[in-house]
């Protein structure tokens, strides 16, 4: 192996990661730093954001953290004001709910769409409009196979928000290409994060559901972080508008 050959390197890149205080966001932020990126982490919970910040690898100095609730216009403006020019962004902040559709009132849809759709779409819009993305930058949205498959009962409200996000990704990919900015998404299957352990679905049911995955397990946050590294790196220079399914074979 050539020791210096690594098309997946993020050295020299500055990357924003939202939802960085837990789960996929935290894992992605740490992985980006280990691949040599300078990372800007943001999330709502100060204590947990600090914990992520402390775990960032210091091969590169200058990591930054910014507390922000992305559904708040004021917080969003503060974040945009402090951001250095970016070579990449991974928008992981999101929420989920398990609710049969007959209970999916407009209020429940609004709650879910505010966090999973309107907040990342507004950030995606302003990053471009305010020219915070360098030429050749790569944006990764975390969607879900819930946007394309009924992967578990009761995920219609959540799935719809992710389907909408995935749709915007494709339009952004086409339009942002004029500045050579790439936009892709990752559609994970069930990933073992705090989101899935809130108790609506019992641990027994989760263990049973994991058997539906041909590779025999749920994903780990690192499985998704590694996909994000590919999409952020120059290894995917000619890839845009793509939804990368990482689901242990569930949707085959």
């Amino acid at each position, binding site marked *: 192996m050539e020791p210096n050959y690594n098309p997946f390197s993020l050295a020299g890149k500055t990357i924003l990661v939202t939802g960085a205080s837990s789960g996929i966001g935290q894992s992605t932020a740490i992985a980006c730093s280990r691949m040599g990126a300078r990372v800007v982490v943001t999330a709502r919970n100060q204590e947990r954001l600090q914990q992520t910040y402390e775990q960032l690898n210091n091969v590169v100095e200058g990591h930054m953290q910014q507390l922000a609730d992305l559904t708040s216009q004021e917080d969003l403006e503060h974040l945009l004001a402090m951001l250095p020019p970016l070579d990449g962004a991974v928008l992981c902040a999101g929420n989920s709910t398990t609710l049969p559709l*007959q209970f999916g009132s407009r209020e429940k849809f609004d709650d879910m769409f505010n966090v999973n759709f309107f907040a990342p779409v507004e950030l995606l819009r302003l990053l471009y409009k305010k020219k915070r993305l360098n030429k050749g930058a790569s944006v990764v949205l975390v969607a879900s196979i819930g946007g394309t498959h009924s992967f578990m*009962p009761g995920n219609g409200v959540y799935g719809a928000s992710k389907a909408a996000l995935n749709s915007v990704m494709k339009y952004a990919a086409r339009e942002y290409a004029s500045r050579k900015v790439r936009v892709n998404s990752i559609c994970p299957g069930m990933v073992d994060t705090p989101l899935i352990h809130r*108790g609506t679905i019992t641990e027994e049911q989760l263990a049973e559901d994991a058997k539906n995955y041909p590779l025999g397990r749920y994903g780990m946050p690192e499985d998704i972080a590694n996909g994000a590294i590919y999409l952020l790196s120059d290894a995917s220079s000619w890839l845009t508008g793509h939804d990368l399914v990482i689901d242990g074979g569930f949707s085959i």
Partner: protein
Amino acid sequence: MSITEFIENFADQFDETDVTSFTPETKFKQLDEWSSLTALSIIAMVDDEYDVIIKGNDILNSETIQDLFDIIEKQQ
């Protein structure tokens, strides 16, 4: 919150089972119609009607409708 009203709301989550067959002693997970989706509907109904968040384990640990009613009453 009364047990009678709770049983009505509970029975409302079923389509095939006769309403009159629901009593406080009904072992609901033994009903033919019971499924994981019914469990999710019960959880959502309890949130809507009683403003109480129950978990899958609360249903797992309840044998009868009365058992579940008691759990919800404690959280109100």
